[in-house]
């Protein structure tokens, strides 16, 4: 059986339902700013299949969203290795809760909601899946990592600096900032991810920006509109 869908860029993503199938390099989504429409019919069909228990569809979701979830987790905790484990936990949790996804057309937003909750309850989530995580093969000297170790450490240091800078924001505003500004979810998607009205997303983001401008001023930086 072969399933086919279109990536956002229009390139076909083809997957066959075999456990042994090697992972193909597929076009992955990139954040492109709030308001960007992401929910299309193909995604809704895919998420409907996931909700019905279709593991092949879930594999496609993983291939499509793993990068985004990996980076989202990193941007919430500032550690690449931990983000890798949390990415697995997010997808395991998404599979466990798949029947609760009532709006398949917003499956991606729902997945980011799962990720937000996993990070918020990180210890509990990691404990739930401790056996599953323990069974993941670990590599001690992956060439890709070794070649890139310096930039990874730089990114971790930079991210920890960012997290420290926004630490003065309330949790709910950090969540909106991470989803909307850092991961490029639209206001509507962020609202679905967090289970709050769109107006609440707007007001939280607005408050977060205002607070950060105040912090900027107190720290001697110029006011930015980039957040």
């Amino acid at each position: 059986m072969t399933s086919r869908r279109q990536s956002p860029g229009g390139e076909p993503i083809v997957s066959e339902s075999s456990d042994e199938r090697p992972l193909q390099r597929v076009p992955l989504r990139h954040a492109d700013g709030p308001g960007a429409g992401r929910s299309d019919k193909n995604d809704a069909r895919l998420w409907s299949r996931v909700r019905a228990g279709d593991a092949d569809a879930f594999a496609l979701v993983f291939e499509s969203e793993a990068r985004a979830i990996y980076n989202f987790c990193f941007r919430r905790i500032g550690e690449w290795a931990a983000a890798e484990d949390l990415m697995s936990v997010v997808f395991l949790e998404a599979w466990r809760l798949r029947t609760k996804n009532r709006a398949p057309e917003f499956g991606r937003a729902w997945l980011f909601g799962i990720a937000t909750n996993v990070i918020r309850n990180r210890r509990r989530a990691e404990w739930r899946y401790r056996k599953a995580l323990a069974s993941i093969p670990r590599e001690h000297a992956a060439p890709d990592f070794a070649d890139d170790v310096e930039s990874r450490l730089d990114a971790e240091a930079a991210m920890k600096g960012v997290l420290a800078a926004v630490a003065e924001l309330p949790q709910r505003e950090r969540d909106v900032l991470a989803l909307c500004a850092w991961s490029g979810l639209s206001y509507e998607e962020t609202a679905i991810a967090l289970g709050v009205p769109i107006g609440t997303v707007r007001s939280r983001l607005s408050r977060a920006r205002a607070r950060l401008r105040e912090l900027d001023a107190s720290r001697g930086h110029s006011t930015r509109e980039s957040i």
Partner: protein
Amino acid sequence: MPTDPYLPPAERDLPFDRLQARREHLLRAVRGEGQRQAALKLPTRERKYALGILLLATAVGAVIATPAFGIVHAIRDLFEGTPPTPLVQKHFINSNEGVQKLTADPPPGIKLPLADTTKIHGIVSVNTSDGPLNLWAAPVGNDGRQCWLVQFANDQNADNTVYGPSGCDIRAPSGSAINWGDFLTTAHPSVRVLVGEALGAAESIKVELSDGSSLTAPVTEHLFLVGHDPGAVVRKVTSFDAEGAALTTSSHGNVVGG
């Protein structure tokens, strides 16, 4: 030039081999829920009769002891809410007419069910070796009762009738009971049909078969449908809520067929 303290560093890719390892690990975990099926034994038909569901119209035939292999229980997506075909609509209308003929002398304490034929819709569809197997339903009144129909989508019956189990709730659903029946039809001897309702907060069911295998299926609008190998019969059905907590277990099918 100062670095913006609120902008995260650029996104990165997980190295390809690690991404593949994560994917394979995830799929192993996902597929490890016991959804594989196998056919081992000849069928031994069981019928359990109980209150709760009244079978209205069915063309279920005699059991045929023909082992068959390779039955697939794959959920077809986007079936929920599908409008009925004329044949399906005709079945519900005919069933209502049959019920109305009985209303002169209804059993005590039982409200005879009349389906709202303007609200017939698809519930779930599964792929089988005999083609798509569809479950249709329509509400009865406003108290949560339903009428339902199982239909092999590819059937082309000369008499323009639907060959499959069907029934209606005769009491309003309450609690978290499971009512189910496991049917084999003369028209489709290679597929055994498990159909039923899982009440309460049930979101999924686990079905344990007589050959030792098990499978899971979603619960949609309190209903579930499974097409499984005729060489095995259902031993136990357990419902689960959205959190994965077991709700109810039933080892005796109580939906009548014949």
